[in-house]
């Protein structure tokens, strides 16, 4: 609603113009910063707790490797969709967005079966904190993926109804950024969990 305020910015002295970013996009970045802090807190807690001993060691579910590949692929398709929308290639953008959403669902299903693998390995939510942490961290990340999939579906609807084109890219850009962020976040968490098992 406030884009009109940024558009007619003029400068008076020095070429010190205010940051040229769309306020909503900027807000998105701040939101991602707070999400990042949430996971930093959890991973720091993980390290602190682990250092105190009485820590059960176990193998991470092998499915997490697969889901990592899935989420990387989904990031690529998301980027393709974004690039296509930017070139007004709507039909291609649609397909890629659809693929991204499906891959996102695939990721969630993969994570869920990863949990099942954990259960077969006798690692439950209730028990030694090492297992509990794994469930909480992956679960919380999964919840964010759910929110991103909702965003994707909203964008899918927007692309189908023709609300996205090379001139209306703000939301598409925000969606892409968020999706990449969550993908990157997963890779961080996965590598972290591998290193601090």
């Amino acid at each position, binding site marked *: 609603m406030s884009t009109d305020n940024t558009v007619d910015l003029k400068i008076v002295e020095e070429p010190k113009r205010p940051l040229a970013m769309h306020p909503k996009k900027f807000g998105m970045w701040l939101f991602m910063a707070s999400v990042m802090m949430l996971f930093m807190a959890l991973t720091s807690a993980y390290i602190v707790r682990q250092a105190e001993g009485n820590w059960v060691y176990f193998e991470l579910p092998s499915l997490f490797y697969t889901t990592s590949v899935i989420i990387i692929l989904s990031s690529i398709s998301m980027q393709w969709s974004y690039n296509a929308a930017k070139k007004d290639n709507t039909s291609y953008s649609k397909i890629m967005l659809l693929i991204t959403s499906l891959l996102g669902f695939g990721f969630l299903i993969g994570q869920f079966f990863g949990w099942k693998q954990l259960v077969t390995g006798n690692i439950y939510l209730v028990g030694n*904190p090492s297992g509990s942490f794994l469930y909480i961290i992956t679960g919380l990340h999964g919840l964010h993926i759910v929110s991103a999939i909702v965003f994707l579906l909203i964008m899918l609807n927007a692309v189908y109804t023709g609300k996205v084109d090379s001139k209306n890219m703000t939301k598409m850009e925000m969606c892409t950024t968020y999706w990449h962020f969550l993908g990157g976040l997963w890779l961080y968490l996965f590598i972290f969990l591998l290193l601090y098992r």
Partner: protein
Amino acid sequence: MAHDTHTHDEGHGHEHHGNFWTTYIFSEDHKVIAKQFLITGMAWALLGGILSVIFRLQLGFPDANLSWLKPILGGWLTAEGKIDPEFYLALVTMHGTIMVFFVLTAGLSGTFSNFLIPLQVGARDMASGFMNMLSYWFFFISSCFMFTSLFISTGPAAGGWVIYPPLSALPQAISGSGLGMTLWLISMALFIVSSLLGSINYITTVINLRTVGMSFSKLPLTIWAFFLTAIIGILSFPVLFAAALLLIFDRSFGTSFYLSDIYIGGEALPNQGGSPILFQHLFWFLGHPEVYIVLLPALGITSEIIATNSRKPIFGYKAMVGSILFIAILSFVVWAHHMFVTGMNPFLGSIFTLLTLIIAVPSAVKIFNYVTTIWRGNLRFTPGMLFSLGLVSFFLTGGITGIFLGNSAVDIQLHDTYFVVAHFHLVMGSASFFGMLAGIYHWFPKMFGRMMNEKLGSIHFWITFIGVYMVFFPMHYIGIAGFPRRYYTWTNFETFSGFADLNFVVSVAAIVTLGAQFIFLFNFFYSMFRGRIASANPWQSNTLEWTTPRNPGHGNWPGEIPTVYRWPYDYSKPGAKEDFIPQNIPFSETPESNLPHENELIKLEGVEGNAIVVEEKKH
């Protein structure tokens, strides 16, 4: 309490477009939202104050029969007319929670960041009015949960506002750790959402929506303070969320993040492998920055009010910005000074001692700058100014005791005594509260278009100021003697009986101080409708909000948003016709007072036509 909010809110607000609901209740206008935060915050402050007086009754008059309070407290009084010991703990807990989060975080930042950011940076409204509205309503729902918890049969949360596990994690430990604690956690989760929505909006608005010419070096110090407060909020509240989330899992789903080897009522709990210290780390990683979330806005407000009412430029503008920034950074690396006695490594303790003591440097810079701003100024003792000066006083007296507490060795004696209570109530509680009151007195004319009564304001100030010192100064002595905080009674210990008279003085002072707040409440609501009509700029102040009409409508300025040419502190500039030059007056209009380098800037004022259009697209 919380219900009063909109009934009070109906009376004011200026827009007459849209219906009642969109204008006063679900408004997206930052000024209305600010007032909603203010009224809700005031309701909470009153409640928090009343709770504190109830437990002061117990401490000051341990033998009194309180059965006359039966109509209010009901079952929380024992048969002998005394406060139930567990309810005492609940009172302390709720007082802390309400004051720290609901009054001094939401009530202070929520009110003044919302009200002042768009007005002072020259924006029509917040970056996202809708998110801003959500921020208030999340806060409101959060308030409802917390308020409800006061009335349940097991009582509200009673584990202290820091909710340390295992006490808070085990419903069988204390009755307040049952449903009351659950409601506390739900309420705080919603509160965190509200706070994050607000902070995102504040930062975005400050960075993206400044008016033409409003560079960062021309921002009023209020905005700097709100801006950095919001950044601290964004980085620290998610950590509290993480801590609370793990606690919820421990409480409700049987995990053992914070629990290990616990026997309760002779029975061993199954939880193994948790660490209660982990919670303290997570909690204080928020908890310490939270202190500055509470304090920085008050310091920003004070900077503005002191400069205006001393009719002098703020002394050391850049040093002020630098010290706020430095405090904000340091606030993230000192959290373990709350945990010196948890058995942490003494070497780590000395590192945190060092980092903690460094905070004294920027704080001292701020106090020095306040004093030098006042020095030889044409002081005007408006209520806002009085409360600002009160803040400086509390910030100094409370801050000095922080130097003692920050030492890990001294803290072994002083931790969790009334010395700590005295320290933080002065430096963070009372100082921020005075900042909030100062802000209300100062910006009331812009909020409601009328003036508050100055005489009543002065009376309010003097009673509160003396009262606060009467309450918290004796506490230092009680604390040095080793009297622990949160204790229901000390009569079992012969050592502490000697402090009965001091505690009596403290309690009487607390009651009088609370009483004085009703003068303020009367003044506030009376002036809202019957106060003297304010002019557009009653304090002859420089910042942009005073260039708006008496009752700024939606969009704040009827015409174009003013352009900013100068910093906000051109008070009593030598040669100038008046003792203030607002930010929107170009240097070309004030040749008599310009400095040589400012004359250079006149040339640049002409290029206004060559707008540099900010790119909308990719960045």
